[in-house]
């Protein structure tokens, strides 16, 4: 085992390989407050990449309801149970990661899902944390709650799948940190399926090898965001690149939101893989649950999120979500607009801070009909 710096844990940790960060790291931000679980992302991904035979159960992208939704069934609670509790002190994780807790003869602590765990892709949909009592009303944090968690491969800095593959058939691209399975070298041992704490690597019973989200790399290489991001009708997603730690740029929306404003947090950072999909936590969910899921930065992240209406720079960064298929490398706030620039520093999107407002007469004289103004 080598010692590597895990910036999510605030400490060094053990990892089977030497640490080597890519030139830039593909990263995503998902705003859980905006997700309506329409599954447009899921369908866009499915029809693009996993419409083949043997891929029926393979969802590189899925949206599940928390706390009782899972795909595959129980993926996170099973591993949390195996890992046991771990404390955070002053932003530093004191517990063990999946690498540090690996049993004898294994590189990673993990479990192999059963066939049946994949049979209900949207199990637990819209199931709340408890019964809504008569007379209950919504306050800030709800007594009874649920939220939607959109999930893809985290293209981890320290991937569990990669570390467990005895054939080195999984690799992380140095140019953008995308994690891929070499489909010609994999022999279907399923060590990766067992090791991935997010269970975002799948075994294909027809091809008899494992497959995972490819980060839509053919699009990335053309300067476009992945299918799941581009098609999101709730505009909850932004894909871009994270700079290496210490090299953050304030005009890079991903650097700005993740590392500078710290508004978006990693999913289960305690697993230790340094995942690169970052979530803006839901506002109305009990904090203890969120801290278990997103780490100790939840309270501050939500405080910052709530301040967005009064923080023009922050608002400008948030307006980069879902408004262009292009990857935004830089952004800036002007008086009336937030502007995003592509990799060639060309303007890719210009979004007004305030949408123009049009009021139409209730009765359309020309057509002789009553109008319905709905937005």
């Amino acid at each position, binding site marked *: 085992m*080598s010692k590597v710096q895990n910036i999510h844990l605030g400490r060094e940790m053990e990892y*089977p*390989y*030497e640490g080597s960060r890519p030139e830039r790291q593909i990263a995503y931000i998902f705003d859980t407050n905006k997700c309506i679980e329409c599954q447009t992302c899921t369908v866009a991904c499915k029809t693009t990449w996993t*419409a*083949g*035979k*043997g*891929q*029926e159960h393979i969802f590189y992208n899925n949206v599940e309801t928390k706390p009782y939704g899972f795909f595959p069934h129980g993926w996170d609670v099973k591993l949390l149970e195996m890992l046991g509790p771990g404390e955070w002190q002053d932003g530093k994780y004191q517990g063990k990661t999946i690498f540090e807790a690996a049993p*004898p*003869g*294994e*590189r990673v602590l993990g479990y*192999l*899902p*059963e*066939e049946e765990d*994949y049979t209900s892709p949207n199990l637990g949909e819209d199931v709340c944390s408890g019964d809504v009592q008569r007379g209950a009303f919504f306050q800030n944090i709800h007594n009874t709650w649920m939220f939607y968690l959109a999930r893809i491969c985290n293209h981890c800095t320290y991937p569990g799948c990669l570390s*467990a593959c*005895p*054939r*080195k058939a999984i690799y992380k691209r140095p140019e953008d940190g995308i994690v891929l399975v*070499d*489909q*010609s*070298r*994999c*022999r*279907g*041992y*399923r*060590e990766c*399926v067992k090791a991935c704490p997010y269970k975002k690597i*799948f*075994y*294909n*019973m*027809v*091809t*008899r*090898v494992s*497959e995972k989200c490819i980060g839509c790399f053919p699009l990335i290489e053309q300067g476009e965001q992945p299918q799941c991001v581009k098609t999101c009708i709730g505009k909850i997603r932004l894909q871009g690149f994270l700079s290496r730690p210490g090299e953050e740029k304030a005009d890079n929306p991903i650097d700005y939101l993740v590392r500078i404003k710290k508004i978006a947090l990693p999913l289960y950072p305690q697993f230790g893989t340094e995942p690169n999909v970052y979530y803006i936590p839901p506002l109305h969910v009990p904090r203890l649950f969120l801290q278990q899921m997103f780490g100790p930065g939840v309270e501050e992240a939500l405080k910052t999120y709530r301040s967005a209406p009064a923080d023009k720079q922050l608002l400008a960064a948030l307006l980069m979500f879902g408004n262009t298929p292009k990857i935004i490398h830089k952004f800036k706030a002007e008086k009336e607009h937030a502007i995003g620039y592509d990799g060639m520093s060309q303007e890719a999107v210009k979004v007004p801070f305030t949408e123009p407002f049009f009021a139409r007469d209730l009765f359309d004289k020309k057509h002789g009909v009553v109008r319905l103004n709905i937005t």
Partner: protein
Amino acid sequence: MRSKPMFGTLLLLTALSGCPSGEPQTGSSGKLTGEVRATTIGEIPLSDPLSLAWNGTPETSVMLLPQTVAYPNLIKQSVKELRVRALADAQFLAVRLEWNDPSLDEKLEVDKFTDGVAVEVPLGDPDKTNPMMGDPANPVFILHWKAAWQRDVDRGRADVQDYHPGFISDRPPFVSGGHPYPISEAFETDNARRYLPGTAAGNPVSKIFRKWPVEELQAEGFGSLADHTYQDSQGKGVWKDGKWTVVLALPRQSPDRANPMFVPGKAVMGFAVWDGANQNVGGRKHWAPFVKVVLP
């Protein structure tokens, strides 16, 4: 990061399991334990592992050990002994491998693993070859049989509808025919096979059609397993009464220069067994170091 082979452990294991240079011994069962002796026969019954012809050649008992040198390890040993017989004819050198296995495991699904067996032969000097998958200077030849491949050959390639008879799906892109779109018929075009990524990438594991339930491979260390372009070995396995009986046959005269040459007096063979019911796969296997093979 490659795990360092533990040669100290290997030496000990080699001593326990019968070393190529050691004298043949006879165990309490009357079986040979130090060497495999091949007997000449007019024609090896390759398609019948249970043929009585195999009784005419001595049986050697090989002790199996759980693989604990490279990650991931086999923690739970479930197969202790492999019984080996060898026959030779003008075309093939064949070994018949027999071991107890109470369950027939031929299904491949996320949590289902196949039974299997393999023989390993050094491609260079046996005395310098690491029995744990060889090394770059001294590679090894491996002939691998799997129960899942035997099923493919005997009853056709296992398909989704075989294991999930009630499955329903949209029409996969570019396929021909109707539901359930058998992979052996409906995926004939390149476009259709693009949605079978492993197959499209030319991965031998993802082959749709298989003539033999065996695969010739080469290795030069852990994680380096690669298949031979030219496959000319044969095999057949039968599971009956709680035991597997598998014949693996190597051509004696092969145009494939990547195949091993057996040198009389220096021929050795290593073995590995996988128990699917106990999720044995890859390095999670039972193995035995090289045993001397006495050629006829």
